[in-house]
């Protein structure tokens, strides 16, 4: 086995694979664990996926939502043990893999067309 194959082999062993398939433009809800002192509770974060980045255990995704009048973005590692579950609420139609243009848009302009299934 080559070096690269061995690295991939190790990465596959630690990677989390049971997350749903989603991409930029989709609206998702991430349920993640928060530690406060020694208590643990769950919190939801619902928003639009801006990008998926990286590969293997280093892969992350960015979710953006408008809270109040302020845009809030969170970056989650895909394999993080803090992520309880991910639900895909809406499939969006976008033309690129990274939709950073959404940051400059507000209100009606920031809508994303929903994918017809």
């Amino acid at each position, binding site marked *: *086995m080559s*070096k*690269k194959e*061995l*690295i991939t*082999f*190790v*990465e596959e*062993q*630690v990677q989390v694979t049971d997350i749903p398939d989603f991409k930029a433009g989709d609206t998702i809800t991430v349920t993640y664990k928060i530690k406060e002192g020694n208590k643990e509770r769950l919190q939801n974060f619902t928003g639009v996926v801006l990008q998926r980045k990286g590969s*293997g*255990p*280093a892969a992350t995704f960015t979710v953006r939502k408008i809270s109040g009048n302020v845009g809030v973005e969170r970056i989650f*590692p895909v*394999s*993080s*043990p*803090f992520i309880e579950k991910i639900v895909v609420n809406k499939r969006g139609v976008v033309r690129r893999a990274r939709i950073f243009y959404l940051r400059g848009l507000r209100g009606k302009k920031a809508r994303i067309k929903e994918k017809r299934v």
Partner: protein
Amino acid sequence: MSGIIGKKIGMTSMYSEDGKNLPCTVIEAGPCVVTQVKTKETDGYEAIQLSYGERKEKHTTKALKGHFDKAGVTPRKVIREFTRFEKGHQKKFGDIIDVSIFEEGEYIDVVGTSKGKGFQGVVKRHGFKGVGDKTHGQHNRLRAPGSIGASSWPSRVFKGMRMAGQMGNKRVKMINLQILKIVPEKNLIVVKGSVPGPNGSYVIVERWS
């Protein structure tokens, strides 16, 4: 002490139970063969010699081939000697040592040859700050070492003065690296943190206890 010869495969990362992303190095360790046992009577000290990797027959000298024939194995690439090997691991000719001598979670040392950086100045090699400003009349002293000693006394430069010279490409030992994972069927050890040398270089994984 117990130890094994291995090969640095490369780096990746994995998550600990408390959610931290840990950098880790994958090492292909063993299986190694005992090719010689040195004893006090015959050699003046006690040690065992381990061999690892594959060496092509046509690249093996007759002397080496004879040495491996004695242990009854095909020619191996790397030969290293381990002194003060644990009593429990006292081995004989042709015995095989693999990753099962280690356990997940324990702390080990890794010895390797660091990446060569060539002839480097004091700023890169010893972390000197360089001399003064870049501008304001300053001329070509930016990365100079500055003074290396006083004049009339001692009239010489002290031994061990840090100066420019060869950096890297020397034996380096990383101590107390935690074993995060062991994959026995593929002879892999995953340790937390980095290990000296480029990918594909040979390292010694050892435990002193």
